[in-house]
């Protein structure tokens, strides 16, 4: 059933959550596509952008499983089916779209069995949806953890800053080693002058798949705490949709 797992990665503050939220908006309109959207950023910005209140986070699920391991009354098969149940409880559904928040991890000691189960379960969960979009944590750390190994396409988001582009390049290099899929592309955000895009194209080895103009509508929705599901077809949304069409997500 699985068609694609796409991870939205990049430096902090470049607009990954905006891009993921617009992906959710687009996928929600494709009624026949079952989509899973994962907020893997512990900051939880995506749930705010989409005005979603998750029932529980993946970290809550992890804590519950750890309790069961501590009790020692469950073998691996029981834990696996418990996890299946808890993951279903953690999904917040909006039409054809299901939302899963990773939550803020806390130091709970080493529970490798639980972590392995979680990794497998998320991959399994993603496999039951047509598409999965992950709003990744800023930087490179997450690229080689949890569900990231199963990612088919790494969408690198950057603003026009050199630092943002360099972080994108580093992520691509790590992803080449750690991620199953070979697809990766750069989406440049908050472009004020199209000539900046040409300069970036000339200075990076990344494939530039599109650019998003600076857009007051996005800024206004953000400031007014409005759900991105309700965004109109403003220039930024159209640009992001074009990029997703290009990579085959929508």
């Amino acid at each position, binding site marked *: 059933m699985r068609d694609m797992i796409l991870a939205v990665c990049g430096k902090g503050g470049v607009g990954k959550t905006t891009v993921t939220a617009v992906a959710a908006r687009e996928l929600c309109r494709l009624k026949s596509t*079952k989509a899973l959207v994962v907020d893997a950023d512990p900051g939880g910005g995506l749930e705010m952008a989409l005005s979603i209140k998750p029932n529980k986070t993946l970290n809550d699920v992890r804590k519950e499983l750890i309790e*069961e391991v501590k*009790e020692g*009354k*469950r*073998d691996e*098969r*029981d834990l696996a*089916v*418990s996890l*299946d*149940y*808890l993951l*279903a*409880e953690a999904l917040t*559904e909006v*039409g*054809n779209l*299901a939302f899963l928040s990773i939550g803020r991890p806390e130091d709970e000691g080493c529970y490798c069995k639980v972590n392995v189960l979680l990794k497998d379960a998320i991959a399994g969960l993603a496999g*039951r*949806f047509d598409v999965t979009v992950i709003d990744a944590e800023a930087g490179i750390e997450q690229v080689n953890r949890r569900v990231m190994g199963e990612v088919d396409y790494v969408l690198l988001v950057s603003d026009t800053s050199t630092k943002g582009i360099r972080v994108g390049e580093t992520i691509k290099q790590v992803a080449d080693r750690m991620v199953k899929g070979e697809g990766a592309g750069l989406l440049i955000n908050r472009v004020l002058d199209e000539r900046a895009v040409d300069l970036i194209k000339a200075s990076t080895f990344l494939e530039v798949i599109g650019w998003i103009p600076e857009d007051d509508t996005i800024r206004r929705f953000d400031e007014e705490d409005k759900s991105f599901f309700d965004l109109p077809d403003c220039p930024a949304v159209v640009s992001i949709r074009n990029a997703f069409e290009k990579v085959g997500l929508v």
Partner: protein
Amino acid sequence: MGLFDEQLTEVKRFLSEARRAGGVREFRAFSTPAWPAESSLVLEEDTAIELGNPQTVSLSLLLWTGGHAVEDGLISLVGPDVGESGELSLPFAQVLMVRGSFEDEYESYQALRDAVYDTRLSGFMVRTRPSKHSLWCRVAREALEQGFSLRYLGAAFVKRLKEVPSASGVEVLFVTSSLDDVERLSGAAAEARRIIEAMMKMYEEKSFDCETCEYRDVCDGVMELKKIREKLAGEKAV
């Protein structure tokens, strides 16, 4: 004597009372056509009805016995079927009773449990929480339109559980009538859970110090557990 004699008696008493009240419908698994087997993801918007949603009450019970209390192929339903209720959600109890020759109780438990976990039907999503003995199911609108009913689920359990080599008969009970009716089986479910936990502790920890064991009261009340203990302690001594 078997591990779950008391729980089986309690379930049978519940069924007898429901029968006397005229609240039981019975189906035969062997005359029920097979529903397509497939693991399904049913999202809320595609759901016709939920059974045992975490906001309500649910219960899942798997009992096995060497005795004759199990009527092979019988599926009993107390309460409305999934296509009959105007509700979007119903409380749910699922009781699976298996008859057979279970020489190694631990292996039998694992084989039967895995058979339950592996029973998946198209358009029917089931989530199990073994530690809580709870169950959360969704029936897809499309499946309901195609005629899905609990009879098909019961028949699938009968078929799959009878594939376990030591099983010779399977009976199924579903309860959807009310929270109270499901709660009436919760005592049996809690006791069955403690018996299984005590048995697993014996097999997995090979610790037989009854003085410090949290399940001492369970073993004191279930002769079959004492036999398992003696058998395992004997094996350990050798």
